[in-house]
């Protein structure tokens, strides 16, 4: 279901979603849209802003997409939607919009959310590292930064990749593990202390590029991430201070799209996507965000 006031945007969105071969209907406003618990609702950001609680209504998913003329969503709008609990906010204009929307819709339709390969063109190689000790974080970050530079990407991308990989790994190593009472008992662990990573403590880092995007994926085996809490933190784009919990917001600020996939109590996967085709000024000021729940692969 596409809910957008502009006929031209309706047509564009209908064609993008038509690639799923699922029936796509359109409506100019939420009042006339037929929505049930199995509907994926793609909503213009202006309509979403005017009905922030709409995302609480039963549907398979609510996805906010750029508004007038499908221009990039502004940061205030993205923050307001995240703060209101929207799990899918697409910020970017075409062609990213089409690529992101199709991948998002297919993940929801197929109920298959894990893996960075869903964002890569066929043929792109995926390289991975499995950390065997918490102290290997620096080496893994250094390796991925070196790999990225070696494939010809500029230092700017290498620098962003370093920050993103480091924050996602730190999150998996120290924020994800919980004890038998559900307490996050690794949060205050010294970061310079070794810890063998076996069983549920295993953390993997993978990356890939296809000339359009560079994707970084970090998995932990805890499944304790809470997308709603993350959305609230990401919504605070300008942080007054940095006493805690700045890791994911920093990774988000360095990305063009941040994707959280979670199988509760089993697996968390965070994917950060960087567009490597366009200058930052040709994209939206804020990154897109998506949260998916699903069965582990």
């Amino acid at each position: 279901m596409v809910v957008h006031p502009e006929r031209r945007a309706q047509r564009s969105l209908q064609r993008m979603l038509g690639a799923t071969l699922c029936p796509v209907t359109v409506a100019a406003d939420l009042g006339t849209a037929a929505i049930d618990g199995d509907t994926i609702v793609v909503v213009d950001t202006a309509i979403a802003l005017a009905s922030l609680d709409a995302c609480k209504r039963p549907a398979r998913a609510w996805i906010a997409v750029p508004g007038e003329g499908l221009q990039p969503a502004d940061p205030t709008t993205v923050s307001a939607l995240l703060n209101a609990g929207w799990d899918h906010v697409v910020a970017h204009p075409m062609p990213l919009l089409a690529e992101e929307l199709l991948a998002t819709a297919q993940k929801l339709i197929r109920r298959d959310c894990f893996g960075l390969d869903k964002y890569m063109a066929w043929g792109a190689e995926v390289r991975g590292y499995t950390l065997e000790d918490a102290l290997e974080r620096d080496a893994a970050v250094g390796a991925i930064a070196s790999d990225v530079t070696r494939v010809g990407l500029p230092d700017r991308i290498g620098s962003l990749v370093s920050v993103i990989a480091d924050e996602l790994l730190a999150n998996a190593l120290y924020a994800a593990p919980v004890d038998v009472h559900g307490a996050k008992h690794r949060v205050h662990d010294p970061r310079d202390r070794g810890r063998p990573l076996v069983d549920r403590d295993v953390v993997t880092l993978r990356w890939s590029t296809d000339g359009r995007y560079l994707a970084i994926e970090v998995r932990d085996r805890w499944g304790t991430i809470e997308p709603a809490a993350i959305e609230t933190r990401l919504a605070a784009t300008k942080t007054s201070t940095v006493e805690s919990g700045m890791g994911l917001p920093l990774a988000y600020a360095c990305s063009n799209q941040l994707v959280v996939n979670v199988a509760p109590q089993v697996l968390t996967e965070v994917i950060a996507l960087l567009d490597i085709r366009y200058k930052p000024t040709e994209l939206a000021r804020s990154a897109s965000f998506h949260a998916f729940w699903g069965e582990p692969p």
Partner: protein
Amino acid sequence: MTRLQIEIAGGRVTFAGRIDESAQLATLASQLLPGPVVLVPEGVTFVSSVGLREWIRFLRALRESGHAVTLERVGDVLMTQMNLISELRGLAVTSFHAQYECASCRNEAQPLVDATLSPVPCGECGSPMQLADFPERYLTIFRT
């Protein structure tokens, strides 16, 4: 990756390497003599969220101990991350590195610039290079 190297020469402190959990910033403010302090973090190549927190605490400690603080030649990665933190608005920054691109040959570089973000000549073809990012990612810190 290089740990943070700190050199103190009178009131001038130079930083190079990574600002992360291993950065020894907690006691640095107390090691500096009273008077104006110039921080030169040009060689900073990486800043983690934990490192950014330590950097903010260091700046806060300098302010609280009465130092007049100026930042010169701030590395790109530190400059963009400091711009995310509203507590740092109004900090004195005289120059910083920013992401520029040449529209003619698409060469990318991080020249040293100031808050005017003026064009600079491309090192490869001589055409004017322009800022390749949103100005607010560098200039929010100048708003009071």
